[in-house]
């Protein structure tokens, strides 16, 4: 496999911009590339996306492969797998990184199987083993109860999808130099077997969960849809986004787009206030990147207190209104 060289990132574009996971992957990928003394490249797929190449270089890429085709406007499994297969076969990277996003979790396994290699999904840490020079792929398993470290010894590229907020982007540096290479998609439209007929946005009004600096989350212990209105009140005072664990979503108390956890959103705010949240591993997988976790729970033994910086043991029905009132007073509201 001596011929496989370089770290390649599969980029994602959201609303005409490089998505945050892409700059994070470029930051993490830069470290891997430097450890190996190899090049870092980015693949940009889409329609009218070439102008983003300079931004990718500013965020750490040495080379940007642009595949521009109107057929790539929307993510579709068949078209994106075919294009990535072509690019990987042409460039022969040693490592290929994707985001653990709606696109990456769909694209990565099919691409890995087609290339006859393997991928580790939802990695939280990647490093280069100093001796073997293999990429060590760390991922949570069993809902976050354990961690596993994998290596792909024989086949190339070594592939991983990376959880959002697990890696830090580099400072943008517009003086960085890099090369832009255009690659033909070579897509045959008849190979695209699925058709996206509609896109429905379910975004809740207010601050986006993934971008919020403060998140207020309610758990199963909230007990009802009405109880979440009290959380909304606190969120309003703090300028926070509201989140939920899985049970309130499954019970229909809140829309499923509020779910924070392994199968929901991954958040990393400065302040994460968990109310009536037990702290299951599945939930913590979505919020353990928070800088300060605050727990309010009546069960002193709840797992959330093992993860929290500050906590109050008490019934949220009594604690929450008093807390909201005091915060409002302190913030001069």
């Amino acid at each position: 496999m001596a011929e496989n060289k370089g770290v390649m990132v599969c980029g994602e574009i959201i609303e005409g911009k490089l998505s945050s996971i892409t700059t994070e992957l470029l930051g993490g990928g830069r470290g891997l590339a430097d450890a190996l003394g190899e090049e870092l490249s980015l693949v940009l797929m889409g329609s009218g996306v070439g102008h983003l190449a300079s931004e990718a270089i500013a965020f750490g890429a040495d080379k940007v492969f642009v595949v521009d085709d109107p057929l790539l406007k929307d993510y579709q499994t068949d078209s994106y797998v075919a294009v990535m297969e072509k690019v990987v076969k042409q460039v022969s990277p040693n490592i290929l990184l994707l985001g653990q996003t709606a696109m990456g979790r769909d694209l990565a396994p099919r691409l890995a199987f087609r290339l006859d290699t393997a991928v580790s999904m939802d990695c939280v840490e990647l490093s280069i083993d100093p001796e073997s020079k293999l990429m060590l792929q760390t991922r949570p398993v069993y809902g976050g109860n354990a961690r596993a470290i994998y290596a792909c010894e024989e086949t190339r590229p070594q592939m991983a999808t990376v959880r959002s907020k697990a890696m830090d982007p580099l400072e943008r540096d517009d003086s960085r130099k890099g090369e832009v290479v255009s690659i033909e998609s070579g897509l045959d439209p008849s190979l695209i077997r699925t058709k996206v007929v509609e896109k429905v946005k379910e975004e809740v009004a207010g601050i986006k969960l993934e971008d919020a600096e403060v998140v207020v989350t309610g758990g199963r212990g909230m007990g009802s849809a009405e109880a979440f209105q009290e959380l909304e009140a606190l969120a309003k005072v703090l300028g926070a986004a509201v989140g939920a664990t899985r049970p309130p979503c499954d019970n229909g108390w809140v829309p499923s787009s509020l779910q924070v956890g392994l199968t929901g959103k991954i958040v990393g705010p400065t302040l994460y206030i968990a109310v009536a949240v037990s702290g299951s591993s599945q939930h913590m997988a979505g919020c353990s990147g928070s800088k300060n976790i605050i727990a309010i729970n009546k069960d002193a033994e709840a797992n959330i207190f093992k993860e929290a910086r500050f906590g109050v043991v008490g019934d949220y029905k009594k604690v929450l209104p008093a807390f909201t009132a005091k915060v409002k007073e302190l913030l001069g509201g």
Partner: protein
Amino acid sequence: MPNMIVCVKQIADPEAPAGSFRVDEAARKVIPASGVSQVVSPFDEQAVEAALRIKDAQGGKITVLSLGKDFVMDVIRKPMAMGADELILLQDPAFEGADSRSIAYALAMAIKKIGEYDLIFCGRQAADWDAGQVGSGIAEFLGIPSVTVAKKVELVDGNVRVERVVTDGYEVIEVSPPLLITVSNELGEPRYPKLKGIMAAARKEVPTWTAEDIGAEPSKLGAAGARIKLLKLFIPVREAKCEIIEGENPEEAAANLALKLREVKLI
């Protein structure tokens, strides 16, 4: 009427308390906790439910396929008790030590042996190793399209209409069968088996197929077919350093918490 196949996995109950979870670091294996029951992986139950909703609307036949060992028959028969028609088990020492790829290969070979299919359902990921690769892998081995993380699946005029969950909502995707779909929890709660269903499921013959039965190449199965190597398995250390804020009563503790957050400049 559609022929449907649902792939399910039997796992240790993922809702079991985290404190009961142990690993054998030397063997790189999870130690089965005593008293933790076996269940059908929750996303796989939702995959069964997705197939049953189509059967409710249009009729059809549902065959459940499960690869594993140490099957608890009452547990693995549950999809049949919910309303699936048949269950086939895949069990062979040759399947052991597999990664997602070699499992997907074995399931794809078993599906080829079943022969006729319009829709194949899997859970979005097994709630033990959380890899989320097997569904896409089966589709790749069979050369059929796949749609992942579905919250609704319908058959409309012979076409499949899938609502696929994405970050800010969902996409509606149309595709003609055959097709593989992975199902997410947004689909909603799976139905409970009724007593009649449980009794009927208990009476059904459950064939077990081996690697030879499905015509699989030994070099592609289990550890031999795996492309990824598990180097280490461990339980991450948690730092227990939570400062509990006290008060005369819950209201005072709440106010003290707010003051504390102010003091450390978090608000």
